[in-house]
């Protein structure tokens, strides 16, 4: 019997939490097709993670914890997924469009000559086709694509679909399979991996606090030996003012392109057209004017708060709440208030 496959991304022996959102989407598609959901888990602790996938709604699982799959590498992962797809002919293969999910699904879709609908924010079955809606032109418009075929690959944007409720009662059948590629057939070797712990990933964050050009207005005095006083002030502002607010909220730190290009903070934090597209529950924009390119990256946020000296800044048009004022006064006051109220 055919199925809908859902790829459960793992890292360091644990499931990446956004994978449960993909289980929810797989479940909905499987319901329309009248088939069960099969979780595909590769890497360390695959069996324990497969069991967990059952708690979120998978009906069965195929696992492989071969040593070649311990860390994600595209070649061995895609080789195994493509083989499983060729053998089992699932109706659909679903995964979250994380860095790894994007490349694994696109690769396996190509290997198996299957259509691929990527970065969907809505997915539905209509007749024998799957239809998906996704953002295009950096989120300025939506595009609707449909796909027909024996197996349709679908990647879904993180936080676009709710994760199903966890129900620990359910035990599912787990099938173990062998890896397809032996180590000496894999042309990519991992030399080192510097894991950055403690930082919250922008794509997964429920709350994001971002700083922009206004970060340079830090009233603190730059040391005499600072190479560029404005850059020093802004960098210090991210560390002393933005980060503490993000920490108090359990959120991630973002930035505008202007702040990144000026050297105030690393590119990894950039939100916008040439940075990350985010859709948190709460987005707090501090000292960000709100250029159209920035808006493109954050307009999916549920609630936007703008803190800016300039009451005419375009960011206020997107904001549910605004405070016109100096971020260097308002943000520390907000952090103190939150610590008091949230404990």
């Amino acid at each position, binding site marked *: 019997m055919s199925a809908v496959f859902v790829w459960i991304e793992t890292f360091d022996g644990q499931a990446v939490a956004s994978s449960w959102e993909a289980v929810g989407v797989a479940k909905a598609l499987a319901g329309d097709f009248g088939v069960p959901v099969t979780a595909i888990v590769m890497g360390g602790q695959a069996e324990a993670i497969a069991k967990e996938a059952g708690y979120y709604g998978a009906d069965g699982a195929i696992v492989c914890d071969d040593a070649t799959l311990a860390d994600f590498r595209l070649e061995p992962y895609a080789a195994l997924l493509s083989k499983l797809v060729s053998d089992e002919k699932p109706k659909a293969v679903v995964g979250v469009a994380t860095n790894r999910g994007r490349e694994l699904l696109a690769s396996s879709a190509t290997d198996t000559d299957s259509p691929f609908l990527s970065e969907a924010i809505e997915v539905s079955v209509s007749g024998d086709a799957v239809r998906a809606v996704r953002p295009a032109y950096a989120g300025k418009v939506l595009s609707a694509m449909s796909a027909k075929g024996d197996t349709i690959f679908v990647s879904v944007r993180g936080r676009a679909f709710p994760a199903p409720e966890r129900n620990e009662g359910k035990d599912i059948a787990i099938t173990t399979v062998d890896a397809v590629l032996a180590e000496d057939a894999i042309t990519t070797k991992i030399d080192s991996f510097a894991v950055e712990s403690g930082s919250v990933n922008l794509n997964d964050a429920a709350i994001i606090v971002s700083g922009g050009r206004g970060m340079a207005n830090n009233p603190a005095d730059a040391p005499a030996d600072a190479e560029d006083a404005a850059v020093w002030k802004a960098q210090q502002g991210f560390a002393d003012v933005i980060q503490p607010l993000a920490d108090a909220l359990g959120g991630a730190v973002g930035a505008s392109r202007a702040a990144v290009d000026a050297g105030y903070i690393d590119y990894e934090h950039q939100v916008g057209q040439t940075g990350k597209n985010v859709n948190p529950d709460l987005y707090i924009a501090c000292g960000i004017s709100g250029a159209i*390119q920035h808006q493109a990256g954050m307009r999916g946020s549920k609630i936007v708060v703008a803190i800016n000296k300039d009451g005419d800044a375009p960011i206020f048009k997107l904001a549910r709440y605004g405070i016109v004022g100096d971020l260097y006064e308002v943000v520390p006051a907000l952090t103190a208030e939150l610590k008091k109220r949230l404990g």
Partner: protein
Amino acid sequence: MRVITFTRSTPDTAAKVEANGSTVNWGDAALVVNPWDEYSLEEAIVQAKNTGGQATVIAIGNEMHNEALKHSLAMGVDEAVRVWDDGVDVTNGLQWATLAAAAVGKVDDAKLVIFGKESVDVGSDQHTYQLARKLGWTMLSYVSKILEIDEANGTIKVEKVLEQGKQVLVAQLPAVISVMKGINEPRYPSFIGIRKASKASIPVWGADELGVSLAVGGTTLEGYENLPARDITTEIIEGESAEEKARLLVDKLLEEKVL
């Protein structure tokens, strides 16, 4: 070593884009090279030079993509090619990858393809992976640094960025890589470069010439839709002091249940 890079023209990032059925309008906004591709073009020029080779840029699409190809030539890429034919559907990833793979195959001695992280118009990077698989080459995505290219041993060493940190990988050539913003400082085209590029005639390769059949099924673009109108009433929090404003804002955020 011959380095190939792909590019496309996109409306300027400041453009207002509106859905119009199966296409989009961007008014009189200028066409620019896909912003992510400035990094891949720079990297292709640098890597070709470092290995004593040349760089080729390819765009798949109609005449509008000559704009990006001319920008690439003006930056210093050695040659440009456009791939186009009646009936090409650039929104169909499998078809795109089939054409791209055939085009790469037509360029002698190519061992490295460099992409920008994604295309801002379609907002996708799937074509990079699809091309790598069609070619059967190693795929290295999200590259933040090329640490070494060892042509004698046929290997490439890169640093790549993942959600959880930075990884250093060694892989065999030939390879397809996608590069991040920040891997380099893209150069501005020189005046002489711009003049030279404006006179260049760009060859167009069709499906027959590439030996490719366009009959690949799969996905169909149904059309574009404008974003649902956002009905936002902005409430400006007033107060005597920053502390009072902060307190009132926290009240509101607790009511919204987003904390």
